[in-house]
Structure formats: structure tokens, C-alpha cells
């Protein structure tokens, strides 16, 4: 596998949310507005990048018996850093994401990448993997939050969009999150199958 593929795979082919269906708790919970979705996506990408870099560097030193606790410590460190930075420089985002920032620790996508990729690959590939997966995660959150915000609140980035369509309340509520995600995943599966058929 070459470098480009390592980067590329997280965005569509192995997208953590839309294909692997990993880390759905924050995906469903915070995507009520585009700003929240993007904020969560970027915060997670930062944590993923940090943990992938550190874990790929130190993985040879870690005895396999205690590897999971070690990974969790590394991940928790980066999550706390992100949490502090957001509190310091973006109080508004901190207020709306709230508890979901510390909960990035238990996002199984991050531990999954550490265990399945960073611990077995060189630094450079681990960085590309983290960036690809992070962008894939952020894109999925952006897509879902855009659909939910437009349909559920009639706004995008908090700005009202033209047209007098009344907002469909259910899309800002949890059932709407499940429904919207379901439709996106179905569409992704449909198009991947179609592409395969064409080849």
C-alpha cells in the first residue's frame, strides 16, 4: 500500500463513521448544528493525530500485556489537552459540546486506530492514517450535522436559510439523528455497490 492510499482510505473506503460505524456516540449526540459537528470532528482529529504519532513512536517499548492501558493514557492525555484548549479559546464551543469532549477518550475509533494501525506501522504512515481517518470522521459529522441543522432548525452555520419551510423538529432530536445517519449509510452502501458493479 502506498502513502496516498493510506491517507485516502479513511475518507471514503474505510470511513470510520459511514463504513466502519465506529464512535457513533459523539456522532449522534453532537451533530445538531454544523458548528458542533465540525468542532467535534476537528477535536477528534487532533486527538487521533496525537495518539497515532506517540503510539507509533513508542509501540516497540510497550509490552503487549499492558498495551491497552498505555494507549488509553496517551489518548486521555491528548483529550485533556484539547478540552483545556477549547475551554480557554472557545468558550461557546465548550458550552455546546460540553461533556462530549472528555468523552472522546472512549471513542472506539481512536483506540481502534491505535491498536490496528499505529502500533504496527511507521510514524509517517501513522500520521497519514490519522489525518485520513480524522478527515473522514469530520466529513461524516459535517454531512450529518448539515442535514440535521437544515431540516431540523432551518439554518446552516446558525444563519437562517431562505424559504418558508417549517423546520422538522424531529431532526434535532435523537431519533432524527439515527434516521439521518441510516439514510447516509444506506446511500454510501448503494453507491459503493454500484461502483463495484461497474468495474
Amino acid at each position: 500500500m502506498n502513502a496516498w492510499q493510506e491517507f485516502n482510505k479513511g475518507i471514503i473506503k474505510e470511513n470510520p463513521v459511514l463504513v466502519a460505524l465506529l464512535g457513533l456516540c459523539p456522532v449522534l449526540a453532537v451533530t445538531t448544528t454544523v458548528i458542533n459537528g465540525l468542532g467535534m470532528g476537528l477535536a477528534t482529529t487532533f486527538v487521533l493525530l496525537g495518539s497515532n504519532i506517540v503510539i507509533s513512536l513508542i509501540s516497540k517499548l510497550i509490552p503487549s500485556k499492558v498495551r491497552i492501558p498505555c494507549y488509553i493514557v496517551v489518548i486521555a492525555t491528548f483529550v485533556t489537552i484539547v478540552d483545556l484548549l477549547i475551554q480557554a479559546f472557545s468558550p461557546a464551543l465548550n458550552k455546546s459540546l460540553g461533556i462530549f469532549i472528555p468523552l472522546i477518550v472512549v471513542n472506539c475509533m481512536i483506540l481502534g486506530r491505535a491498536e490496528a494501525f499505529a502500533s504496527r506501522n511507521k510514524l509517517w504512515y501513522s500520521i497519514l492514517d490519522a489525518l485520513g481517518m480524522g478527515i473522514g470522521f469530520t466529513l461524516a459529522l459535517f454531512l450529518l450535522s448539515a442535514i440535521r441543522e437544515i431540516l431540523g432548525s432551518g439554518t446552516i452555520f446558525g444563519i437562517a436559510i431562505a424559504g418558508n419551510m417549517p423546520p422538522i423538529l424531529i431532526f434535532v432530536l435523537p431519533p432524527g439523528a439515527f434516521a439521518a445517519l441510516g439514510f447516509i449509510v444506506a446511500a454510501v452502501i448503494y453507491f459503493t455497490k454500484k461502483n463495484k458493479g461497474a468495474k
Partner: protein
Amino acid sequence: MKSVFVLTIIGFFSALLLYVTNDITKVPIEKAMERVKVEALRQIFPFEFKNDDIKTVIDESGKEFFEIKGEDNNLKGVAVETSSNEGYSGEIILLLAVSPKGEVFDYSVLAHKETPGLGNKIENEPFKKQFKDKTLDGFNWKVKKDGGFVDELTAATISSRAATDAVKKGLEVVSKKYFSGNKK
């Protein structure tokens, strides 16, 4: 043995990194929280004031009162945090501004978990306006459904009830401190 050693080393470096980050972000976080508070106070008082005009008073029970002082040091208004557990899901926390005469200026919702699109309308002007200039006496602090004066929000009677309850409680706290017997 090696496992313990490696985990300890990793823990040590994590702690070091967090120590540095905490050191860097400590002041900005305090400033950000201060700014959020001042911003919230600005929204609920109908007049302009400078940051220096805010005086925080803490009473014996640990309750914080934000006094706004005018030019000749007279009291122009008091704000207090107030909450209600009567909400549809969880606590509703408000910041309530009261005039020196004991009338409600306005409030802003600091935290709530009410249903988006229904209960969260307690944050909107049409609902909030009902409390403006109301005092503890002469106003029936209940929603209309319970025989009071407050127009409840459609499909959000419980949230309306809770908001009313919180405003009333806040007003009571302020009245008790500022208007009962020992007037300042």
C-alpha cells in the same frame, strides 16, 4: 516488572504534558469564564455598564450576587443565579436581573436540557417578556393552567412552570437579602 516500569514512564510524561498545558491555559480559561459571565450580565440589564461597575457579593450561604453600581455608587440592579428542578428533563439554571425596586429586568438561561423546539422557547423574548417589571407581590407566580398569570408555552407547560418557578425563587432570594428589614 517491565510493564510496571513502562506504564509509570508513560504516566509520568502524560502528567508532565498536562502540567504544562494546564499552566498555559489557566489564565485564558479564567478570562474566558469571566467574559462569559460579563456577557451574560450585559444581556439582561437594560442599561450599559462598565466591567468595573460589577461587584460580586457572596453571602453566608455562599450565594453569589452580582451588583451593578452606578456613578455615585448607588445600586442600579442585582443579578443572581437561580434554578429549578421542576423542568422536563433536569435542572434549569437562569441568571436573573432585578431592579433596586424589586422588579424583574430580564433573565438569560445559563443551562437547560428542555426539548429543542418546544421547552427551549423559555429562552425566547415572547416568553421572557411576561416577567418584565413584575414584582413578588401583585403577580401570581404560576402558569395560567395552574391559576396564575403566566402564559405557558404551547406543548411545554412543564418547562414554562419550571422557568416561572426559577424566576420566582431568584426574586425571593434577592428580596430577602436586599428588601427585607435591613435595607441597604
